[in-house]
């Protein structure tokens, strides 16, 4: 899309998707926060009969033990957000610093770091998280977050390194160096503005991946134990009764979907804004 031709329609569309993302994430964050103060029922309260469809008494129906699904969804929001934020904060910080360092390093150190990224990426996050969580007698959310965050960091690092190297190959970097700009200033004024839009998209994906990975762990039966109601575990429990009670499988999936897509839309809006201001500044 050319910058001049599309500034108008793109701005309004960017605004709309950004707003939609904000609403979706906002609703889930609100649900997660409210769950600390209020939920329709207690989590393990068998308040209804089994597999009730959605009704005024049970907004999302009940599970096979008659527990309220809306309550579980609210608690699940809390868990998903904590996992996503924690993992991205850990993975993003480690990944960006090491990625930029690698791009600037001497050939040997760069090769070494690139190899370390490859090795760590080669340890599929989910598999390692499975191993770590399973190895502990008491599965805890903190272990999962740490495992997922460290697991994401080499992916961020690898992409940061490649992007930084591409920027470093540009003529304007040479020009900046010749005119006496320090490397620190080059990182801040030339490299970060050029890599942040792509990385922002990537970090949003990583947030989504972390939330999904936690849901996968729970779905596989390796998540935080009850009474923590993770969306993944809700889906696992609903799968066996999906034919008679499809809503049990629909709502947790929708919640996961809404959170991940909301975050991605926010990032896309951000990408457009950053891209535009980057161009304006340049």
């Amino acid at each position, binding site marked *: 899309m050319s910058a001049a031709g599309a500034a108008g329609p793109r701005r309004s569309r960017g605004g709309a998707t950004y707003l939609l993302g904000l609403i979706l994430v906002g609703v889930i964050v609100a649900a997660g926060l409210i769950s600390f103060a209020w939920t329709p029922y207690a989590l393990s309260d068998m308040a209804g009969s089994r597999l009730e469809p959605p009704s005024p008494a049970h907004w999302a129906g009940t599970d096979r033990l008659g527990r309220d699904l809306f309550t579980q969804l609210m608690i699940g929001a809390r868990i998903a957000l904590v996992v996503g934020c924690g993992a991205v904060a850990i993975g993003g910080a480690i990944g960006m610093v090491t990625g930029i360092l690698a791009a600037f390093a001497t050939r040997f150190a760069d090769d070494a770091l690139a190899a370390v990224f490859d090795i760590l990426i080669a340890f*599929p996050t989910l598999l390692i998280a499975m191993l770590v969580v399973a190895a502990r007698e008491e599965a805890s959310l903190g272990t999962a977050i740490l495992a997922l965050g460290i697991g994401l960091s080499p992916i961020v690092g690898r992409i940061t390194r490649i992007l930084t190297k591409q920027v470093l190959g540009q003529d304007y970097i040479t020009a900046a160096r010749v005119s006496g700009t320090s490397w620190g200033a080059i990182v801040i004024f030339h490299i970060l503005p050029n890599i942040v839009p792509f990385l922002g998209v990537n970090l949003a994906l990583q947030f989504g991946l972390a939330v999904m990975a936690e849901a996968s762990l729970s779905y596989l039966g390796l998540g935080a134990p009850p009474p923590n109601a993770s969306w*993944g575990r809700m889906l696992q429990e609903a799968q066996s009764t999906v034919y008679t009670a499809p809503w049990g499988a629909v709502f947790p999936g929708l919640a996961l979907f809404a959170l991940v897509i909301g975050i991605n*839309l926010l990032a896309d809006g951000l990408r457009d804004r950053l891209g535009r201001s980057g161009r304006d500044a340049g």
Partner: protein
Amino acid sequence: MLGYMTRRLVILLLSLVAAAIVLFVLLRLLPGDPANALVGVGATPEQIEAARAQLGSDQSLLVQFVAYLGDLARFDLGQSFVSRAPVIEEISRRLSVTLPLTFAAFFLAMLLAIPLGIVAAVKARRWYGLVLSVVSQVGIAVPVFWLGILLVYQFSLTLRWLPSGGFPLRGYEDPGRAVQSMILPVLTIALIMTASLMRYVRSATLDVLDSDFLRTARALGESRTGALMRHGLRNAAVPVVSVLGIELSTTFLGAVVVEQVFSLPGLGSMLLLGIQQRDYPNVQGVLIVSTLLVLLVGFLADILQRVLDPRLRKEGGR
């Protein structure tokens, strides 16, 4: 280029050794002596001692590590604690399910994602370009096992077209049923991967469409499509190729989870079973083989990226 490939190959081998070390340490850090898992609950101390001697876990870590590296070099991954079968045999049997699943899904995804992603970027302001962008946004957020469950609900339970899970006992000797039981899992993974790849293709193409060299090519009189074909796609391919390796690994991981949805006897269910049964040789074997596969893919993606982008080659820059 040849020098780079040699160096990259050395790095690949070093990575493998390092990965072996990490895995060795990680598995030794797990609680409990593997000997306990071998003899089971209620074994006498003598039995445990015998098991330890058999496994070599009574020897020093260094001795164990050297023996372990030697075994790896000979592709000897040990024997399962549970079935006593050589791990490598079990893995190759499981790979005959996981690899076709992964590659079928990956190639189907590329086949769909590359043309659709380019169209989504080039025709960004037409309604179908917009629809494609929305679909790729939507698709990336769909949990793979959720899509699996929904497809089972629709195509197995409601329409009764395809099996809801399982794999024929005789495997590929029963080709009709084997293929049938793979259709929904392949579709599940491929649809999700298409969305994710399309995003990268679209984003890279958009960046290229925005570039100075494309504007110059247009100014020199090339048509929009011609300029994109001649100069754009090659440049757009660079960031896409750099994520292909990661995407293939993600497909592989998707297979691990999707195997569980459809009860397929692949590598993923082997790992999960191994973890549940504390069958360390199996767990270790699966992780080593997955690591090897992902490292190889990363190696190939790096080489391909160099072939595509000469700028990365100059002055030995990486």
